[in-house]
């Protein structure tokens, strides 16, 4: 006998009320990161050097700034989703688990905001 309500079954959101959205967005961000991460690695490594002048000149190209902003947002999101699952799987004990999840969320938001701010400051 299923104890799930007919409405709950139709909505398909499960016990946490999220359905498959965590799983789905992990994949969407993964697909986006394949070209974005390869682009970032290759274009940084192909610069004549990573000294200040070269990196600033590179980041002041509009498309480079746009793509790096996209990379930062998508990669911190993908990372936040992944680290969340690792914490949920391996950190036992409710207080330390909640603390770890909060710390991970805050750190990821800080990294994302700092990264986007730095890109805009240099590029604009």
């Amino acid at each position: 006998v299923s104890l799930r309500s007919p409405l709950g079954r139709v909505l398909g959101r499960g016990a946490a009320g999220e359905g498959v959205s965590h799983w789905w967005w992990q994949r969407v961000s993964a697909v986006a990161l394949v070209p974005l991460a390869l682009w970032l690695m290759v274009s940084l490594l192909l610069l004549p050097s990573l000294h200040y002048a070269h990196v600033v000149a590179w980041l002041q190209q509009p498309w480079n700034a746009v793509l790096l902003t996209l990379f930062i947002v998508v990669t911190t999101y993908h990372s936040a989703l992944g680290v969340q699952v690792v914490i949920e799987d391996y950190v036992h004990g409710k207080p330390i688990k909640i603390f770890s999840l909060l710390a991970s969320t805050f750190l990821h938001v800080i990294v994302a905001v700092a990264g986007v701010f730095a890109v805009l400051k240099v590029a604009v």
Partner: protein
Amino acid sequence: MRSRPLSPHLGVYKFMYTMALSILHRITGVALSAGLLLLAVWLMALAAGEASYERTYDFLSHGLAQVVIAGWLLAFAYHLCNGVRHLTWDAGIGLEKHEARRSAAVTVVATVLIFAALIYIAFYLRAGGAA
């Protein structure tokens, strides 16, 4: 709370190299997440101006930092290749045991090739430049 049995019981399975690839995906993922902190520090140093950037540059040019960066490039190459492998599974492709073992071998070879290419560009092609 009474302690309950936890799955999976790793001890009851014969070790297969596909198991190592599976846990490596998580390990490299966490390592790359830690690397994001470094990326933020690097970008903030860039935003703070030339003096602060060159200090960070010098720090990242030291031998130990270069080893960490090389390890990070390896983690990146692996997580990328095995991530694509995961996406093919999500599409319902290659789920048979022999197929998963073959794609594991392909993943390892592709990882080594991409890592070698990145290292070649970073440390040899760019004469005198730090990674």
